[in-house]
């Protein structure tokens, strides 16, 4: 156990201290009094567990490759930007553009998420980045998604008319990967490239596996969550813009 008091510290200094501690072999680090410092978790290739007390700043876990970060409160924008591996657990809500171009690892948010979450997410063979949000999402969820898994749970209850689980343009530009949504999806609010489908057996297995991990992080019950039916969004054409150009 290793503590760093981040009070009043510039991000550069804080991250230098974290990296130095990791290099010294610390594998459980707690950052106290964090208040908006950017880039926590960036540039670490080892696999420490870092607990963050206070609200971390933007680009948490950007390009991250290995560590597990647990944020005890809300978090801000750009979390897990182009993250490669590792895990980020947010015990509160999180902001916009989460998991931009994410290539691997997991991002678990207990609460709601903002706009453009999962944008440009990638995936190849075994590398399947996964984002699970327990609450609702803003517009453009899964925009340009090319791979990976996005899961929206709406645990606090949603209503397709008054309190929809996702905003407009759900899955717009999506050309790979899967989005699972618990409850109803308004077909007028999805992107032109995706279709709303039922889950097949493999989907169920995948979903269950992802949810078991999510539930373990927040002490929730998988069975309770899976009582409600899920829908799947998938691209229905891989060349949505084939006719856009005159050759």
């Amino acid at each position, binding site marked *: 156990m290793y503590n760093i008091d981040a009070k009043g510290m510039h991000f550069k200094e804080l991250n230098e201290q974290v990296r130095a501690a990791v290099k010294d072999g610390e594998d459980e680090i707690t950052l106290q009094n964090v208040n908006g410092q950017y880039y926590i978790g*960036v540039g670490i290739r080892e696999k420490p567990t870092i607990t963050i007390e206070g609200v971390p700043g933007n680009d948490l876990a950007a*390009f991250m490759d290995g560590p597990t970060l647990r944020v005890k409160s809300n978090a801000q924008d750009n979390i897990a930007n182009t993250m490669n591996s590792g895990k980020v657990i947010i015990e509160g809500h999180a902001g916009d*553009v989460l998991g931009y171009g994410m290539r691997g690892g997991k991002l678990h948010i207990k609460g709601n998420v903002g706009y453009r979450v999962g944008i440009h997410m*990638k*995936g190849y063979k075994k590398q399947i980045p996964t984002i699970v949000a327990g609450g609702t999402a803003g517009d453009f969820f899964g925009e340009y998604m*090319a791979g990976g898994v996005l899961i929206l749970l709406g645990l606090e209850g949603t209503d397709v008319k008054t309190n929809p689980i996702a905003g407009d343009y759900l899955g717009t530009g999506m050309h790979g990967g899967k989005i699972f949504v618990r409850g109803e999806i308004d077909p007028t609010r999805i992107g032109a490239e995706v279709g709303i489908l039922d889950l097949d057996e493999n989907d169920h297995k995948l979903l269950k596996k992802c949810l078991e991990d999510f539930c373990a992080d927040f002490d929730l019950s998988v069975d309770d969550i899976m009582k409600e039916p899920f829908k799947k969004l998938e691209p229905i054409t891989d060349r949505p813009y084939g006719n856009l*150009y005159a050759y």
Partner: protein
Amino acid sequence: MFKSHVLPEYLATIDTDKCIRCKRCIHNCGWGVYSWSGERVLIDTQKCVKCLRCYHYCPVEAIEIEDSKTRYKDNSSWTYKNIRNIKKQAETGGMPLSGMGCDLPLPILFDNMLLDACQVTNPSIDPLREPMELRTYLGKKPDKLEVERTKDGKLKLKEGFKMTPQIKLDAPFMFSPMSFGSISLNAQKVLAMAAKECGIVMNTGEGSLHEDLLPYTDHVMVQVASGRFGVNPDYLNAGVACEIKIGQGAKPGIGGHLPGEKIPLQVAKTRMIPVGSDALSPAPQHDIYSIEDLRQLIYALKEATEYKKPISVKIATVHNVAAIASGIVRAGADIVYLDGFRGGTGAAPNVIRDHMGIPIEHAIAAVDERLRQEGIRNEASVVAAGGIRSAGDAAKAIALGADAVAIGTAALMTMGCTVCGKCYTGNCSWGITTQRPELTARLDPEIFGERLANLIRSWKHELMEVLGALGVNSIESLRGSRERIRGIGLDTETLDMLGIKAAGT
């Protein structure tokens, strides 16, 4: 079937007396112009793009590719191109695309500038037999250096003084970013080998770094664009610098769109996207809506590379380029890469390519001037690209204020490219802008790497001759010396903008 009203552009003909029926043209043409009837070669001239591959590979010179003689009636307003596009659009409903840079006869200011030379009052220098330095370094230069003397009286950097990271270039040239996907892996290897050979740098573009390029990483700059293809910590730390791509001169304000034809397994793997899907890298990076956001990404990259790599930001030159460049420098970029509107591309809608942006000459002058006025010129190096056709253009760009120039199209020409402009089809007969294995196999990286290295060697010599004639012995002495340029046929406003005098004054 409805017959297209789009006139064929070219007329491919074979002199049947000369033709020995070797079928090489059939094999060489990536566009399927030729086929075998059983007795002779058949020609579907509608498909010809005048890349001239067949011409070069016909052993008896039986092939002739001419511009099709049948043209619409002469009309200066309704030109052949205008009419042809309208017909194409009417038949398909799609946007006409182009590969390569803008080919419209708009003014090229480099051609209206002449360099000075020494006569009588100042001596010129013999570049072959006297010292001549082309080496330059890209990156933020510190406001001051701290030096101390060693025991034997030599100067060295003071103990503990940390120099900002720099890219070393043995000559002020770079290869502009061209991704694996938009060009073939062999074409990237040509760039990498030549870069290594010449002590300069190539740029991966946004399609990640293929493992075959790992031996060349001391001469590679890696790029991060909106699609974030293949970006991971290894990638970011692999090269000599990281570049954030905001825009491209040929298509400012719009993103990349690699058609599914150019996404076979290998490309899909390095980009981590499905095979045969269109690779989308739309214009906005949705984490950058402001200079402050750009700063956030610049520093994210600096954190990820532990402040050991210079960070470059590449933009298309648009109207307000000087203010934007100033913002980029203040956001912490170490290099500003300016891509002028004549810059090349693998694919751009004509409406964008031919109508947007400003020429690189204006942009260099405006950016250099602005950074000087603000006292931050040392904070970043300026790379100029987009229409550099010769060492002469390079010299003028540097005299206007650039630190180095980057070339793309000129480099592809050494691999066989004839600027046919059809890169977006993925059928390049020269094996450059294609992923079809039977086409890419023709581009031997060793042979063409040497040719490209030859081009750079030749340009180095030319640049040295220019410096010698100007009476200076290092590229650093040419940088920003606009008093050594005169304009011809330019109006006062343009001269003022460029910060140069008219010839004769």
